[in-house]
């Protein structure tokens, strides 16, 4: 009796893809429910490691730098800004606002944080607190 491995592989692949989508959908649903409940827009963001710490970008279309409110709250960075999008007004009650609470990686030196804004893209650079020490190789 021969076993069809390709069928077994396809079955496992299908299950894996279905599970990956279920997890992703659960996360997106939680975020969209939060948006509706809190009448806000959670912007797209990206956190990238750098040599000295982290580089974060947050997409805030239509926002000027004076309008952004950046606050440290425990181990998070909270970002608020007005959102004037017509699309957002369709789903939010009242005046929509961009809102996101970013969990910060451990060891961030809060005093090192530098933010800038260009074309509605918020850029935040932050350094980790300790530079570490060099190990000798024997």
């Amino acid at each position: 009796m021969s076993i069809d491995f390709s069928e077994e592989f396809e079955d496992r692949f299908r299950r894996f893809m279905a599970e990956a989508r279920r997890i992703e959908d659960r996360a997106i649903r939680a975020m969209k429910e939060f948006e509706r409940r809190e009448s806000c827009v959670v912007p797209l963001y990206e956190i990238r490691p750098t040599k000295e710490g982290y580089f974060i970008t947050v997409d805030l279309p239509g926002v000027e730098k004076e309008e952004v409110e950046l606050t440290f709250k425990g181990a998070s960075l909270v970002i608020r800004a007005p959102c004037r999008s017509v699309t957002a007004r369709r789903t939010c009650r009242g005046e929509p606002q961009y809102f996101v609470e970013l969990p910060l990686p451990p060891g961030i030196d809060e005093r090192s944080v530098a933010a800038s804004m260009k074309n509605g893209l918020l850029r935040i650079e932050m350094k980790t607190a300790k530079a570490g020490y060099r190990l000798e190789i024997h």
Partner: protein
Amino acid sequence: MYGEATLSNGLDKFKFDEVDTVGEGQLLFDGLPDTGLVGTIAAQSIVNSKKMSLSVRIDSELLPPVAVVKDRNLFEPLVIYGSDGVSVLTSEIPIPTEAVKPFARELAAWLVKRKFKSVISVGGVADPNRPEKEKPEVLYITNQPEAFSKEIDLKSLEPLDRAFLVGSKAAFLLECFRSGISTLGLFAQSFLNYPDPGAAASALSVLGRMSQLSVDVSELVKSGEEMRVRFRDLMRRTMGEMERAQKSRELEFPSLVV
């Protein structure tokens, strides 16, 4: 069903329901969701500016059970709009990774059957330095430069020399090259995970001399901020599919190409 479908090499997974006449000798503009939604934003801009109407509805068991409600009517998320010898392929959902190859194969076969003359596929190529660039560069790849050189100044663009392409555009371009349809892939440097109307404007500028595809790019730039909010949810879903398709390979270099 979605996520439970059988993987198959057959040409019967996608149904192309032509609701309007698709004439011979047409150009297909591919605006499927991908990096920075560059092609999708460009496609939307063309469809709106040329006031195109729905010409083909595409459906498949491999797609999620999603319907789009518009003007009290229901539509498939994957559709082709058309007018004036041009068809524009666009989608409200990213193509699920396991459906990418069957769809590319069947779409190319349908294009051959319907005697399409050429294909222009517009996408983005992720550039970590995109925030610094006011006008992103556009790279190209083609199997028949002479088919496009009358209307597009390919010499002013950089060719895509050595790279990996991943996702629905990669699969579709491969099928088009294989089937011999005159094909041009245009890739604007863009954000990976943010909708990028600026990159779409750069790509559309290249097509400015093609009357059927020329749009007022300044309008696109002006409405860019709204588009970035409007396309946010599609971008999130597309990011998930891009990860499942191993999009990170586009940052790698082909080992066997010397």
